[in-house]
């Protein structure tokens, strides 16, 4: 029986039919989705912190509102994704606990610090650029609620990268100090952004299963290559150098070759040893714990109000 259901399920996916919350699905599919969607949601929420750092220091009122709107969008994206995850039978509070206890992961990129205003631009250009590359294929993911959430996310995300690029473009046309600020920032963000696509295909055990389930559409290395090809051209517009001496056009492959990623750094940050891992989790935990009495009060008040209503009706 189980085998049969599995076959029907896979056949449905092969026909590009979407899976909806109440449909039968293998346990492993459900678990993979919960892991991936919640990881994605956590990344949005934790990702608000490094950028939020600069809301209070944005250099103009126009930049200030744009950045606020962007960080707020990320809260929205987290919310859409938590909602998608909740359709799989796990509630948001549980997901938060997993984040706070360190059980759940989020994108390592957000464990790097934002040290200058240019970092807000670099995050938009490189980090959002890499994220978009990961996210666009997810709009066709086999799980309906996730795919629909991602359509919304991608639609809103489109201004984010432009916002970042515009910041950098302004710096590139500015004073020598501003140009230096730009280059220094790109130097710091390039490699962590490259790491956002995850381990290379050879070291990515879940990829094959996820591709078969059409949760994932491209491998990590395919997406990373696409990213390098696009960024190299965009860097010219900004007049910055990508900090990789090995980048060079490969006529035969029709792609840019690039240098080796520092995988030791990658795994260290994943394990919690990045520059800001502890601060990020601490900030999330503090917000959640200090909000507990607020959430409680709202529930208590709603109960009182509902009780008064029933009493009136009676």
């Amino acid at each position, binding site marked *: 029986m189980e085998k049969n259901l599995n076959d029907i399920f896979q056949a449905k996916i092969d026909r590009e039919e979407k899976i*909806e919350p*109440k*449909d*039968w699905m293998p346990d492993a599919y459900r678990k993979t989705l919960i892991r991936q969607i919640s990881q994605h949601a956590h990344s949005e929420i934790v990702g608000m912190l490094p950028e939020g750092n600069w809301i209070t220091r944005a250099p103009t009122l126009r930049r200030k509102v744009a950045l606020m*709107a962007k960080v*707020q*969008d990320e809260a*929205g994206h987290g*919310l*859409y994704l938590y*909602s998608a995850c*909740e359709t799989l039978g796990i*509630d*948001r*509070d549980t997901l938060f606990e997993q984040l706070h206890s360190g059980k759940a992961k989020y994108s390592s990129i957000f464990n790097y610090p934002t040290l200058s205003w240019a970092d807000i631009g670099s995050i938009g250009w490189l980090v959002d650029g890499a994220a978009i590359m990961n996210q666009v294929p997810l709009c066709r993911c086999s799980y309906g609620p996730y795919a*629909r*959430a991602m359509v*919304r996310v991608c639609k*809103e995300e489109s201004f984010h990268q432009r916002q970042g690029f515009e910041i950098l473009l302004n710096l590139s046309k500015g004073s020598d100090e501003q140009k230096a600020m730009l280059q220094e920032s790109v130097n710091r963000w390039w490699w962590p952004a490259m790491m956002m696509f995850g381990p290379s295909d050879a070291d990515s055990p879940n990829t094959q299963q996820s591709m078969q389930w059409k949760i994932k559409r491209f491998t990590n290395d395919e997406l990373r290559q696409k990213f390098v090809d696009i960024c190299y051209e965009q860097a010219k517009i900004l007049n910055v150098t990508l900090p990789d001496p090995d980048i060079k056009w490969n006529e035969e492959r029709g792609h840019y070759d690039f240098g080796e990623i520092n995988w030791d750094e990658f795994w260290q940050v994943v394990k919690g040893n990045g520059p800001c891992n502890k601060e990020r989790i601490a900030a999330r935990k503090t917000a959640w714990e200090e909000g*507990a009495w607020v*959430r*409680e009060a*709202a*529930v*208590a*008040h*709603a109960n009182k*109000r*509902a009780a008064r209503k029933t009493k009136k009706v009676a």
Partner: protein
Amino acid sequence: MENNWPIWEIFIRSKNGLNHKHVGSLHATDAEMAMQNARDVYTRRNEGISIWVVESKHISASDPDEGESLFDPANDKVYRHPTFYNLPDELKHM
């Protein structure tokens, strides 16, 4: 104390003349808060002019396992569709 906020399903009419369409869900303690949250979460870019909120637990959904008995019988009711009827071309619009 139980302080999980219940889930609400959000439906938005993007403009007059169109149906309210399901756009997603969120958490709120009562209908009023759900409405405000929906406004802040789902209409930040002028996506709507009217909002419905329904607490998720009040929605009854059909069982996908009964999908065949519910929906397949409609498959062969071709006479419900206009193309079932053969009419002369001269008639043009009907």
